[in-house]
């Protein structure tokens, strides 16, 4: 069952793009319903929270890895919505398509922009114009630049990787691995030991990440960003001049963390600003699905129930994630090495 879901997701050839979208509200039928604590998105698995707890940085009293990190390895997903709309996570994606917002704005999850207080990214005027131009053209992308990069299987990058499908955290001596459906990130735990970033000329979809633990908080400095991944379907973005400081603040019981990231880019923003994305850990009480808890039970008779995540291969399977803008099939030879 889970496997077949996975296969549908992994292959996704010829599947209408809309059928892949994991976090669609149940369209107009749900709009205007009475308030509930959370709403179930289509695709299952995730309860769409409209508010979430703040988590304070502080000491970590829970279990630890052999090398002393807070033990947080496991499967996680954000709790509010996907990359359709950065500043209104349960609102519309651009283009006014069939998706209705989840109730009036005051009842939907807050903007992911937690600073400034108005919930807007403080773009410089020219950058705002670029973002708006993308949003205007998203649903009918007449130029390659208007195709949302995830629709082409590009890595989701920072911070979009935390607002799309579920993901896994794996911990090792000196390293934390984030394994996404659209790529991977290694956080080198040398941020407090003078760990050096890559030379400036190297720009990467996921940047270069050096971090360290401060109590319950993983603090990561992300440099060498190429800015290409965008933040989602509204075209929000940073440039290759951006640096990001991420704080993964884990709840004392290990059941949640808040991703709090400050973006600095004088060529795009009038001032640094901060995004907050709530994330929940999945447990055996959650029902596996093909999106946010994309796992299946291991075949291990007589052992405690354990979950595994299969490979998720995108470009090779023509599995781009569209939602309005359709991916473009790959050409032939791309490298000469």
């Amino acid at each position, binding site marked *: 069952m889970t*496997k077949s879901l996975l*296969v549908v997701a*992994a*292959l996704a050839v010829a599947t209408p793009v809309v059928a892949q979208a994991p976090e669609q509200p149940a369209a107009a039928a749900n709009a205007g319903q009475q308030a509930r604590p959370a709403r179930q998105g289509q695709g299952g698995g995730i309860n769409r929270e409209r508010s979430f707890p703040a988590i304070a940085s502080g000491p970590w009293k829970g279990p630890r890895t*052999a090398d002393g990190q807070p033990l947080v390895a496991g499967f996680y997903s954000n709790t509010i919505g996907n990359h359709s709309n950065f500043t209104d996570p349960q609102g519309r994606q651009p283009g006014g398509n069939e998706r209705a917002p989840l109730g009036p704005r005051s009842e939907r999850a807050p903007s992911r922009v937690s600073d400034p207080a108005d919930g807007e990214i403080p773009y410089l005027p020219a950058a705002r114009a*670029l*973002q708006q*131009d*993308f949003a205007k053209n998203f649903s009918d992308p007449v*130029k*390659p*630049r208007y*195709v949302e*990069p995830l629709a*082409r*299987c*590009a*890595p989701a990058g920072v911070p979009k990787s935390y607002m799309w499908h579920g993901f896994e955290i*794996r911990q*090792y*001596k000196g*390293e934390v*691995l984030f*394994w996404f459906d*659209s*790529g*991977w990130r*290694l956080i080198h735990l040398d941020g407090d030991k003078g760990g050096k970033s*890559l030379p400036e000329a190297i720009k*990467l*979809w*996921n940047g270069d990440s050096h971090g360290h633990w401060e109590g319950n908080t993983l603090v990561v400095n992300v440099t060498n960003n*190429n*800015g*290409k*991944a*965008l933040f989602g379907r509204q075209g929000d*973005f*940073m*440039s290759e001049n951006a640096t990001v400081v991420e704080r993964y603040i884990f709840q004392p019981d290990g059941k949640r963390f808040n991703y709090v990231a400050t973006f600095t880019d004088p060529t795009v923003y009038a001032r640094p600003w901060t995004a907050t994305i709530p994330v929940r850990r999945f447990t055996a009480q959650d029902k596996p699905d093909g999106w946010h808890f994309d796992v*299946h039970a*291991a*075949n*291990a008779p007589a*052992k405690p129930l*354990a979950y*595994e995540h*299969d*490979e998720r*291969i*995108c*470009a*090779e399977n023509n599995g781009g994630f569209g939602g309005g803008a359709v991916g*473009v099939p*790959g*050409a*032939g*030879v*791309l*490298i000469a090495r």
Partner: protein
Amino acid sequence: MRQSTLKGALVLALLAGVAAPAGAAAPRKTSAAVAAAIPRDAQGHPDFSGIWQTLSEADYDLEPHADRRDAPPSAGVVEEGTIPYLPAALERRTKRFATRTTEDPRLKCYVLGVPRGVYYPAPFQILQRDEDLTLVHQFGNQVRVIHKDGSLHPEELHKELWLGDNRAHWEGDTLVNDVTDVNDETWLDRAGNYHSEELHVVERWSFVDKDTIRYRATLDDPKVYSRPWTIEVLLNRRRDANFRLIEDYCYTFEYADHYPHKDGQP
């Protein structure tokens, strides 16, 4: 006695520039000196954590070949000398060889599969925990998990995975990994050598010394080969100062210059 024979064979192999003879199919014993020097995990098993890369020419062509425009010469890494193709399969391989400069999936930066990702000449990082090894390859988007927690292959196989279903166990200081449930999309090298979705690979990972892994893989595929065959390559620890992986999502090249909000100029 056994050890000195092995050492002799290894020296001969190194001198001749070829893999060790096929007779070495039985698990090799690690010499006492090597056993004492290799890194080990908390359970005392070998710890393969680190960044590895082959120096071999295996990815150009697993079989013996003279130099040619797109490959340096190599005595090959197939212990049997050549791959024991069934007649129809050999014909197909010959056709693939002819189209290799445009049809090799590597040219699109596709997942290289098992075992090719291991001897493709780019670094990969092994991250080892009690329950599994995770292989993160620099090239493309390839993350392979080798489970070694006693779990089994799934009951039902779908033959759709690019990196297969990987279940391993220890035999002394050798990690023996059984790989099945693969698709038939990947090639074995740049020369068009191939397999079907019936491919079954048994990998054997062991240390030669603390900075060198001996990687052996036995490939069986009743649709393509007349009998199982084995390759052996060495993997060298990348010891360059501050060396680490740099993402190489080269399948994005086709469109990368259109972002963020650009018109195709880098």
